[in-house]
């Protein structure tokens, strides 16, 4: 049974430019997104910043009305049956906002427990259970304004689970959290599907999607560009190879020349303190290392290596092809 269904979802925003001569613009943020999530599945929506992951999730959780298309949660339309859907979903947004700063974690949870209709006699044990789950027990009486980002994020998760929803939407829940905290959060997320919940996770961390998700949809520029299991997506680039070149102050023109080489599928640059890592994905059966280096003449080059493609490479190729 499909628990979450998005059918040709579209969302257009109206915006204006100029101060005196105002001009109305229509921006099509989500352009025909379709996917479905089965019961108990952990589904990843993967995409770069601005790909419309959050807009898509906001339509599914009833916060935005789609311009066209349909979305259903547990068989109910998110526009027509918004209240019914709201009772059965939980959602967690990334970042350190979204909590009542001047109140304690306990007050925040008490308030949201009431908002979500948790029975009064069940509120106290449920809040304690969740505080234990997210590791905030003992700190619950402190004001949220004094919490670290990781603590806020864990409080968000507790808030989203107060009413024990069967469907949980997590929008970049580990963003900005330190590595240890992020690892703990990922363990918590994994435990959600273990307890039978259906989860939609948006992230732009490949390893996170790879480690957690049963299936992934890659979204770029408001469209789904690929869907499948992490293995299936990796298989799309399995026969390719990746050349990594350490460079120091590489110029844009050199990168463009590398991109123009025949057999080059995608080029990305990762900043690494004083140097950059040029990652070049190449077509199967081609040895392009020398050709790449020849296009970098004039640039200081460090270590050069080649490796097998990862899910990240598959993702980069998919989103840069749009």
């Amino acid at each position: 049974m499909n628990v979450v269904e998005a059918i040709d979802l579209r969302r257009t925003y109206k915006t204006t430019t100029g101060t005196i001569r105002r001009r109305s613009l229509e921006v099509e943020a989500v352009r025909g997104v379709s996917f479905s999530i089965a019961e108990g599945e952990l589904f990843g929506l993967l995409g770069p910043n601005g790909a419309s992951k959050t807009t898509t999730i906001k339509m599914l959780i009833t916060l935005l009305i789609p311009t066209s298309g349909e979305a259903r949660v547990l068989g109910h339309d998110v526009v027509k049956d918004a209240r019914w859907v709201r009772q059965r979903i939980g959602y967690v947004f990334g970042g350190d906002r979204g909590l009542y700063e001047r109140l304690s974690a306990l007050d925040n949870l008490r308030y949201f427990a009431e908002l979500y209709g948790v029975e009064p006699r069940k509120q106290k044990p449920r809040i304690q259970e969740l505080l234990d789950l997210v590791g905030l027990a003992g700190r619950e009486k402190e004001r949220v304004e004094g919490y670290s980002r990781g603590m806020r994020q864990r409080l968000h998760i507790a808030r989203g689970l107060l009413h024990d929803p069967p469907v949980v939407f997590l929008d970049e829940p580990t963003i900005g959290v330190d590595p240890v905290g992020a690892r703990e959060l990922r363990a918590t997320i994994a435990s959600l599907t273990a307890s039978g919940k259906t989860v939609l996770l948006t992230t732009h961390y490949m390893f996170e999607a790879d480690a957690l998700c049963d299936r992934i949809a890659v979204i770029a520029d408001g469209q789904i560009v690929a869907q499948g299991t992490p293995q299936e997506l990796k298989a799309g680039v399995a026969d390719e190879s990746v050349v990594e070149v350490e460079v120091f102050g590489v110029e844009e023109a050199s990168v463009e020349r590398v991109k123009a080489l025949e057999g080059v599928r995608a080029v990305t640059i990762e900043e690494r303190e004083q140097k950059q890592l040029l990652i070049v994905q190449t077509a199967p059966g081609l040895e392009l290392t020398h050709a790449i280096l020849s296009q970098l003449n004039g640039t200081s080059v460090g270590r050069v290596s080649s490796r097998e493609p990862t899910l990240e490479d598959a993702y980069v190729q998919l989103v840069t092809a749009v």
Partner: protein
Amino acid sequence: MLHTLRMIRIGWILQLKTMARSGFDVMQAVVTPIVYASIAFFLYRRGGGAETLLWVSLGAAFMGLWASTLWGAGNTIQRQRSQQTLEFTIASPTPFLVSLIGTSLASSTVGLYSLVATLAWGRLLFGVPLELAHPFLFALSLPAAVLSLGLLGIVMAAMLILYRYAYALANMLEYPIWLAAGLLAPIALLPDWVHPISYALAPTWGARAVRESVLGGSPLFAIGMCLALAAVYLVIGYFFVRNFEQLARKRATLALS
């Protein structure tokens, strides 16, 4: 119904806690009524007797109560939007109106302090006598006034759900309502066309109920009007919140970005 009452109660308590924890909010709540009371006393102390001064001081108290309601209505939604709790609250299964009632009533409750502060200030500095003509009806008129002002606050807060910058408009309403509601001068002195506006405003009837309870008269009608207006505001608030929430979801104005 029980859930609604619990929700209003917790919203009221937590809003009061939130306000009490902000030095700025506390200072504003403490100082504003004293400033208003001083202005009113200085304006009227030469020309008026003890009864006039008491009439004016009760009007000044309602200036503070109205300011608190207006500030609360504007600030609650704006603060929720800036700390991104507005979306979380709206996307919960509880109708947003219910959570709004608790927070709006909290602002009006804080405004009650302005009544106490104004009367105490008047007594201490200007020797304004304080004798209640109808103590029981005075005790009845206060919650009726707080309720009607609080629910009027909801009507204004509802506009802020849709319009991100409507708080500027809400702030502009502070002074005209003082005049229209007859807080500083009797409504009879205002042009006829203003009267219907005056009679539709909770501060008009709230101030009249309290004044007639203190100075003598028949405050029951004014108390009844407070309650009737509260019911009308609740109905208007219900439709405003429902429709504006729907429009905000369509226009994507719930979040700041």
